[in-house]
């Protein structure tokens, strides 16, 4: 992805400021915005279903200047980060274990591959029964979502480690901990970061979906609360903010992976990770 945008930057530099691509992009944005406004003014829809963008921006401004919004943002960030940390530490740890103990790895492989692409959201009722409808079940949902892409890419990375490195480590009588920190982890940086990027994405989705379904706080809760109170401009504004935050997190992680790839780390393909 970033390769493409890099290409575009250099091209636009060569061709002056406004390349045709850029003009198409600006035109598209203006076109979509103008049609939205036209729909808002037309009165074709029931009151407020398509609110004027000005009202959405006003609602966004209100949100961003209110303390309450930051409370919800804080709850969601806390849930995502704690869950993501639990899920990825478990994923990296078990991934290394399954890579070292090949038999165990093969036994678990079937189960992990079977569960990895399954819609995680159906586990939410179990998590709510076990951890309650508060912060606990959201953290668990984020952890469960993040775990699968991380463990899959760690196992894939373990299979790619140069066996010579492992033999050298064993020859030096490295302890298991030394093997993990000095041999496995340094060779696993790129696959793990790739897994973490996918994992963070699905952890964010998992958390927000759980908040939308049933919660007491958080951005997903705020969005659905606005929907239930029919405060549509506010609802749009929360969704736009959520979407921007999620895409921003993904962009940062993609940058990180690209930087590592440019340094010549081997690339690992992980599929079916959502």
């Amino acid at each position, binding site marked *: 992805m970033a390769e493409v945008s890099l290409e575009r930057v250099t091209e636009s530099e060569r061709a002056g400021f406004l390349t045709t691509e850029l003009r198409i992009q600006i035109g598209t944005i203006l076109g979509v915005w103008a049609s939205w406004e036209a729909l808002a003014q037309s009165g074709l829809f029931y009151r407020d279903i398509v609110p004027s963008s000005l009202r959405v921006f006003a609602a966004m401004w209100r949100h961003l200047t209110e303390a309450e919004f930051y409370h919800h943002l804080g709850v969601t960030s806390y849930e995502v980060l704690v869950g993501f940390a639990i899920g990825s530490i478990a994923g990296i740890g078990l991934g290394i274990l399954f890579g070292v103990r090949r*038999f165990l790895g093969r036994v678990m492989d079937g189960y992990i591959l079977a569960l990895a*692409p399954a*819609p995680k*959201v159906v586990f939410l009722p179990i998590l709510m029964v076990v951890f309650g409808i508060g912060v606990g079940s959201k953290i668990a949902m984020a952890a469960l979502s993040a775990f699968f892409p991380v463990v899959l890419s760690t196992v894939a990375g373990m299979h790619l480690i140069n066996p010579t490195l492992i033999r050298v480590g064993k020859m030096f009588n490295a302890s298991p901990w030394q093997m993990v920190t000095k041999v496995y982890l340094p060779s696993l940086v790129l696959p793990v970061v790739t897994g973490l990027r996918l994992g963070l994405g699905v952890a964010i989705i998992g958390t927000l979906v759980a908040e*939308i*379904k049933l919660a007491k706080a958080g951005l997903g809760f705020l969005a659905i609360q606005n929907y239930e109170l029919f405060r549509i401009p506010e609802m749009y504004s929360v969704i736009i903010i959520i979407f921007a935050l*999620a895409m921003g997190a993904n962009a940062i992680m993609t940058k990180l992976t690209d930087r590592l790839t440019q340094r010549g780390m081997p690339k690992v393909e992980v599929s079916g990770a959502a």
Partner: protein
Amino acid sequence: MRQSTIMSAKVAFVGLGSLAVLVAAAEYSVDAGWVSPFILAPPTEIWSAAVEIYKEEKPFRALGLTLGTTLAAIVLAISIGLPCGWALWRYQTVGRAYEGWLGALFASPKLLLYPLFLVLLGRNVGMLLIMGFVTATIPIMLKTREGLVTVSPTLINVGKAFNMTEHQILWKIMLPSAVPIIFTGIRLSMIYTLISIVALEFLLNFEGLGGMVGEMYDRYNIPAMYAAIIFVILMSLIYFRIVQRIQTWLRSV
């Protein structure tokens, strides 16, 4: 060869054995009172709940609804995504302008836009279909363009040497050699669309597989909830296997 068969048998034996141990442990821990039956249902009760669900809730009707919506969304996505992908390839500047956006949209959590679609379209199958279509069409567009872009120039030159028209080159050379990549796009969209549709059904307490799980949770029928979840996982597993098979089969053709 023989050794690898023995190994696979061992793996299957230990794998199924651990599952059996886990199931027995679940049963025993509830019976012994270590785990509350309001958290974990004993597998025997899950089984009787599954029989009950099979008789009363018509789980295969739910499966049919979910699959029907998913496949309808995919057919719609193919019929619109393929020509759009072609257009993105044919008009290169437009393709370059939109490729980055489409890639970002592909990675973006479109599921979170659902309150927006709910407001615009209401709580009905049409809304599920449209959201499924949005999820499905992006990988198809991107992979169709990618497939056409990566066709070997030698093949195109051969076509030109035979004085083929642009139309003939597209249908006889470019599309056939782009098919494997296009099918990767279709496979991705089949996976992501099923996931989104089940998630939406669950969020909206709509019908279908996701709705069935939500319904059992709302009734607070713990064994039935577990049974429904296991059913959905098994069905999605079979679905993903079939999708995988279709692609391997198409590759070999």
